[in-house]
């Protein structure tokens, strides 16, 4: 049975992507709770939300595209 180490590494990268997506979403929910419930003004919440979720999604999108490139 052949054992392809690079394929295992790629699966490890896939795992990292999954963990990154879960952590960034979970942290987004937690941070959003803090921004909404404590002290932040409406306009500031919107700016902070757009910045956090926008950049996080952009980075996750780039990671996803790179992952597709790695697997194909």
């Amino acid at each position: 049975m052949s054992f392809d180490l690079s394929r295992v590494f790629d699966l490890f990268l896939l795992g990292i992507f999954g963990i990154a997506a879960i952590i960034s979403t979970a942290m987004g929910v937690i941070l959003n709770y803090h921004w909404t419930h404590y002290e932040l003004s409406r306009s500031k919440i919107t700016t902070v939300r757009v910045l956090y979720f926008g950049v996080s999604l952009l980075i996750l999108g780039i990671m996803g595209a790179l992952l597709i490139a790695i697997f194909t």
Partner: protein
Amino acid sequence: MINLLPGEEVVLVKRHYWLPIVAELFVFLVIALIPWGIFMGEQFTPPTVRGWIDANTARFFFLSCGWLLAIWILSFIAWTNYYLDTFIVTTKRIIDVDQVGLFARTIAEAPLENIQDVRVEISGILASLINYGDIHIQSAGATKEFAAHSIPKPQEVKDTVFRLRHTNRIQGEAAQ
């Protein structure tokens, strides 16, 4: 969210001085740029590392993006902790919100009439030049001392607390 009492108004909201959080975010920025520095600085990376990066560019960029995302999240956690750590003076009380971490938050408050002593502490050349320091407020209530560290213009807090306490006392006497 702080629920204000009837007729109560927020007079002053103080946060820690901005320089430490800016320095922290700058450190995060430098750490975030490490993989890109490795990629750009060909002459500084060992040949084995350079060889792996050249052979696995997509994988390297994937890991760099993961690194960037982690730093991005940590930066927001640091900023949120900084931003929500506030010292509030209202027309009726002082509220000290200690945001230690995302899951550690302490709120202490004391009515202005319970305040016995306010002490401002500015120590160091930088603190004196930029005018930031600590403020310690002695209270007669359950929370004996309120302390806000590294806040800009601490003297302003002291003056405001005394002014409001004086105004409240005059209004209280007039009402009697």
